[in-house]
C-alpha cells in the first residue's frame, strides 16, 4: 500500500526539511538505523536515511516502532502512541507514522533548547534510582535502593539512570546524583543539603533508551507519567524488566494511606504487570503481590514472576558514650522504657499502644513510653491522645526523629519495643529491635511474624499479639514488663537470631533481578504482521 509519504516526492521533501534543520535530526536517524537494520549507517543526506528507515520498518511491529519513536522523539513513548504509530504505518506507511517526531519543533533554537542526544543502551543493566538520587532523605524504600545500588555498582557495572523532570525520558544520572543515590546522606561541599534537589537533576539533554537491555527498579515509582512510559517500555523494548516489591499497602490497606496514593500505585502495578520479575522484600509482601497477580487474567495479562528476597538488618553497636547520651536524652530514669518506632499514621496502630499503656498504668505497672517517629498522614488523634495523657502526668513522650546512632542506642536501652502494625511490607523496627537484642511485641501475622520467627519457627525474641485486640496487647506488655525470666529468655533468643547482611541481600537480588532473566536476543524478531 502506497501512503501519502511513501512516494518519492514525499521522502525527498521530508528529507530536505530535515537537512534544512541541521545535523541533530539526522543524528537521531543515524543513531536509530544501525540498531534497526543491524548494518552501519551510510554517511548520506536525510532523504537516503529516510528511505532506509522506511525499508527497515516495512512490516515492522510495535517493538520497532517503540524504538523509532523513543529515538526520534527523545522520550519514551506511551502505549497508545506506539499503537497509533503501528496503525498509521499499516495504513499509510512507516514515514507517515513517524512524521510528527521527524518534523517536531519541540527541540532546537525555536524552542530555546538543545537537541538532546539519544543513546541506545543494548544489553546493559540500567538501574533506575530516580528518587533516591534526588534526595539524601532516607525512607525505608530509599534505604533499600541505596544499599543495593551501593553494592551493585561496586560488584557490577550498571548504568544508574533517572528521569527527565517531566518523567518522559530516562537519562544518565549526573555524578552528584549518582553519589547521592549510592551514598546518600553526605553531600560534597557546595552540594545541596539532604532533601534539597540536586543541581543538574534537570539535565535532559542526554537521554537513554534501553533496547533489549535489562532495566531494574529498586524503588517505588508511583508517578502515573513515569509508570505510563515504563509500561510501554516493559512491553515493547525487548528488555528484561524487574523491580523490588515493597508492599501493596495502597491497594490492600488504602484506608490507612493518604487519599490519592492508590491511584499512583495502581499505575505502578499496571507497569509491573508487564514486567518480568518482582523481588518482594518479605514473604508477606510476596503474598500481596501474588494476590494481585491472581487478579490479572481478566485483563489478558500474565504478570511477573514473584519471589521473596527478605531484607537484611545490620545493627549498630553503640558506644558507652552514645548510650549515656541517649539515656540522658530519653530520660527514662529508673523506669523500664517501652520504645515505639515509626510514623504515626493509623496503620501503625499507635492509639492501641497508648490505650494498652494506660490500662497498665492504671493498674500500677510502672514504665515509660517513648515514641520515635514523624508526623504523618492523619496522626491528629495520636497527638491529641498523647497530650491528654501527658496532662495527666503519664510518662509518655513523642520524639519526631533521632539520629541513627541515638536510635540504635535507644533500641539497646529499651526494655522492649512495641510494633503492632496492621500491615507492613517488612517491619523495619521489628528487625532493628531484634538485631539489637531487645524483645519486641508485634503482630502475629505477615512480615512481622516472619521476622519474629527468625527463619526457624516461632519464638525468635518476640511476643506475638492480635493488634486489633487492645487487651491482647496490654497482656503482652504487662508480661514483658513484669516477668524478668520471660524478658531474659526473649532477649537471648533475639541475640541468637542469624544475622543477614546487605551484601547477601544485594547479591541475591542481583542474581534474581538481573542474572535470572534475559532480554530478547538480536535474532528474536517481533512477530511480523502477517495476513494483511
Amino acid at each position: 500500500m502506497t501512503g501519502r509519504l511513501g512516494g518519492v516526492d514525499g521522502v525527498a521533501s521530508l528529507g530536505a526539511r530535515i537537512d534544512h534543520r541541521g545535523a541533530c535530526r539526522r543524528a537521531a536517524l543515524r543513531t536509530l538505523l544501525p540498531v534497526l537494520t543491524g548494518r552501519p549507517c551510510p554517511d548520506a543526506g536525510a532523504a537516503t536515511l529516510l528511505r532506509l528507515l522506511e525499508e527497515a520498518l516495512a512490516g515492522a511491529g510495535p517493538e520497532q516502532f517503540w524504538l523509532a519513536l523513543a529515538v526520534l522523539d527523545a522520550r519514551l513513548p506511551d502505549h497508545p502512541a506506539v499503537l497509533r504509530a503501528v496503525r498509521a504505518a499499516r495504513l499509510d506507511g512507516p514515514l507517515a507514522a513517524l512524521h510528527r517526531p521527524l518534523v517536531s519543533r519541540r527541540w532546537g533554537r525555536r524552542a530555546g533548547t538543545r537537541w538532546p542526544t539519544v543513546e541506545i543502551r543494548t544489553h546493559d543493566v540500567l538501574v533506575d534510582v530516580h528518587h533516591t538520587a534526588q534526595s539524601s532523605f532516607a525512607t525505608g524504600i530509599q534505604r533499600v535502593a541505596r544499599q543495593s545500588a551501593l553494592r551493585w555498582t561496586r560488584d557490577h557495572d550498571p548504568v544508574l539512570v533517572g528521569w527527565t523532570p517531566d518523567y518522559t525520558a530516562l537519562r544518565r544520572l549526573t555524578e552528584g546524583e549518582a553519589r547521592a543515590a549510592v551514598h546518600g546522606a553526605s553531600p560534597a561541599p557546595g552540594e545541596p543539603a539532604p532533601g534539597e534537589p540536586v543541581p543538574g537533576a534537570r539535565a535532559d539533554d542526554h537521554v537513554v533508551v534501553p533496547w533489549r537491555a535489562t532495566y531494574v527498579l529498586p524503588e517505588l515509582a508511583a508517578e502515573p507519567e513515569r509508570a505510563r512510559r515504563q509500561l510501554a517500555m516493559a512491553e515493547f523494548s525487548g528488555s528484561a524488566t524487574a523491580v523490588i516489591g515493597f508492599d501493596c499497602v495502597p491497594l490492600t490497606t488504602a484506608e490507612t494511606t493518604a487519599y490519592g496514593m492508590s491511584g499512583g500505585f495502581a499505575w505502578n502495578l499496571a507497569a509491573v504487570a508487564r514486567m518480568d520479575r518482582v523481588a518482594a522484600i518479605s514473604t508477606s509482601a510476596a503474598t500481596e503481590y501474588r494476590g494481585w497477580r491472581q487478579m490479572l487474567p481478566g485483563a489478558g495479562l500474565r504478570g511477573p514472576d514473584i519471589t521473596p528476597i527478605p531484607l537484611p538488618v545490620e545493627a549498630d553497636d553503640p558506644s558507652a558514650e552514645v548510650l549515656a547520651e541517649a539515656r540522658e536524652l530519653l530520660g527514662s530514669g529508673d523506669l523500664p522504657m517501652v520504645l515505639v518506632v515509626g510514623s504515626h499514621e493509623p496503620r501503625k496502630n499507635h492509639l492501641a499502644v497508648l490505650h494498652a499503656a494506660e490500662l497498665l498504668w492504671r493498674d500500677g505497672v510502672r514504665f515509660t513510653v517513648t515514641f520515635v517517629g514523624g508526623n504523618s498522614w492523619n496522626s491528629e488523634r495520636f497527638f491529641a491522645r498523647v497530650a491528654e495523657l501527658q496532662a495527666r502526668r503519664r510518662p509518655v513522650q513523642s520524639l519526631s526523629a533521632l539520629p541513627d546512632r541515638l536510635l540504635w542506642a535507644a533500641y539497646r536501652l529499651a526494655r522492649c519495643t512495641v510494633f503492632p502494625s496492621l500491615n507492613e511490607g517488612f517491619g523495619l523496627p521489628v528487625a532493628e529491635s531484634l538485631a539489637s537484642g531487645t524483645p519486641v511485641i508485634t503482630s502475629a501475622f505477615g512480615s512481622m511474624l516472619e521476622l519474629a520467627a527468625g527463619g526457624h519457627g516461632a519464638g525468635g525474641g518476640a511476643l506475638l499479639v492480635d493488634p486489633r485486640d487492645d487487651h491482647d496487647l496490654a497482656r503482652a506488655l504487662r508480661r514483658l514488663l513484669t516477668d524478668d525470666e520471660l524478658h531474659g529468655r526473649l532477649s537471648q533468643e533475639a541475640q541468637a537470631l542469624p544475622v543477614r547482611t546487605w551484601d547477601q541481600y544485594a547479591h541475591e537480588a542481583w542474581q534474581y533481578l538481573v542474572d535470572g532473566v534475559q532480554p530478547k536476543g538480536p535474532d528474536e524478531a517481533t512477530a511480523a504482521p502477517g495476513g494483511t
Partner: protein
Amino acid sequence: MGEPRGETVDPTVARRALAQRLRAAGAVLCERPLPEPDPDPARDAAVVLDLLVRDLHTDLTPARVWLFYVALASCLPTTEDLLAVLRGFELSAPSEVGAWLLNTCLSAARSGAPTRPLRVVTGGVVVDVDHSSRHELHTGIQQVVRHTVPLWDRDHDVALVAWAPGCVAHRELGEIERERVLRWPDRRAYGRVPQARETAELPLVVPWRGTLILAEVPPEAASARLAALAQYSGNRVTAIGYDCIPVVSADLVPVAEPNRFCRYLSVIKHSHRVAGISVSATTEFSGFAAALPAQGLAGPAVSECPLPAEGMVAATAAPPAPLAPERELPTVLSVGSFEPRKNHLALLFAAEYLWRSGLAFRLRLIGGSGWGRELPDKVRRLQAQGYPLDVEARVDGARLAEAYRDARFTVFPSLHEGYGLPVAESLAFGTPVITSDYGSTREIGERGGTVLIDPRDDVALVDAMRTLLTRDDRLAALRAEIADRPSRSWEAYADEVWTCLVGAGAGTDGVESR
C-alpha cells in the same frame, strides 16, 4: 455534611428522635425490658441512655457499642470513631461515661441525621440499592439490581436501603425509589429526579445480627463507615462482585477511579462473602482476598454466580432479523462507552483498513459517557473522509434493540471487562459477536455464536471482520450456534446469589462466624 444545610434542626423533633433511637437500640441491647416511655422525650432519652450505659459496661463488645453509637450519634461510626468510644467507655466509670458519651456522640451527630428515627432489622437482610433507587441510569450494575432485587423482594423478607445525605447511614427508600428498583419497566416516575426533602423523614435502618448485601458498589463517601460496620457490627456483609478493573487496569481508566475503588476494597476486605458475576470477576476478588493474609485477615469467601447472559434483554428480545437486504450496506455494530478500555481505536483502524481494501459496510458505534480525546477526533476525521460511520450516544432501549437486530454482527474487542454486557445483549438478539478471547467475554463467548480474537492484535480483528463481512455461510453457522446456546434465567441467578450471599436459611438465623 449531614442533612441538607440551611435547614436548622428542630430540637423537639431531634429529642423525640433521639429517645426513639435509644429505645430501638435498647430493645435489642438491654437484658431487661425498658420502662414505660416518659412523656418528655428528653427525660425519656436520659433514662434509656443510663440503662444502656450500665448494660454495656457489663458486656463491652465492639458490636454492642457499634449499635449504641448509631442510636446516639444518628450516623454509623468509622473505625476510628468506634475505637475511640470503645476505649473511652473502658476507661470511664459508669457514673461519668454518660456525660462523656453524650458529648462525644452528639458532636458526631452534628454530621449525622439527628431528626431521623431508627429501625433495627434484627436477624434479617438489608440490601443497599442506593444508586439504582435514586438515579435513572440503567447500565450494567443497575440492570443486575433491577432484575434481581425484585425477585428477592418477592421471595424473601428484605429491607431495601439507600444512603442518607452525606453517606452517614442507611435509610429506608421512598415510594418512588422503591418503584425504581422493584418495578423498573412500569414505574410511574420515569425520569423524575428525587428531591432530598421527600426522603428527609424516612427512618435510618441498620441490620443487627443479620446480613447487609451490597448489591452495588456503594458510594465512596460511605466506605469508611461501611468498613467499620463490616468489621465490628457483628453483621455479615456480603456483596455482588462486578469487577476490579480500576486497580488491575489503571492504564485504562481515569486516574480518580483507582482511588475510589481502593476505598471500596477496604470494605470488601472485612466482608464475609462476594458473589462474582463471572469467572473473571470472581478471580479478581479472590486474588484480592489472597493478598489479605499479609495483614492477618481471611478476607471474604468468593464464589462465582455468573449472570444469565441470555436474560439480559429477555423482555424485549425478538427473533433475529433476516440478513440485511442487498441494497443496504451491512451494518457492523459496536456498543460500549467511549473510553480507551473498550478499544474503539482498534476497531476504527480495522474498519478503515477494510474500507480502503474495498469492502462496503456501515460501522455504527453506540455508547455514551466517555472520556479521552483521541476517539472523537478520529471519528470526525473518518466521517469527513466520507466513510459510512455513525455514532449514537445515549440511546433508549428500543433504539438499542433495533440496532442489535439490524446489525450483521457486532464487535466488542474490549481490553478488560467484568462481564461484557454488549456480548450478552447481542447474543440475546441472535446477532453474532467478535469479541476478546480472554476473561469474561470469553466465558460468555465460548458457548457459541462468537468469533474470539486477541483484542491487542489488530490484524486478527481485521481478519475476523473481513470473514464475517464476506462469508454468509460463516455468519449463518454462528447464528445457528446462538440458537443452541444453553439459557439461564434471572430466577436461577437470583436464587443462586441469594443462597451464596445470605445462605439457604434465608437470613433469619443470626450471625454466622467466619
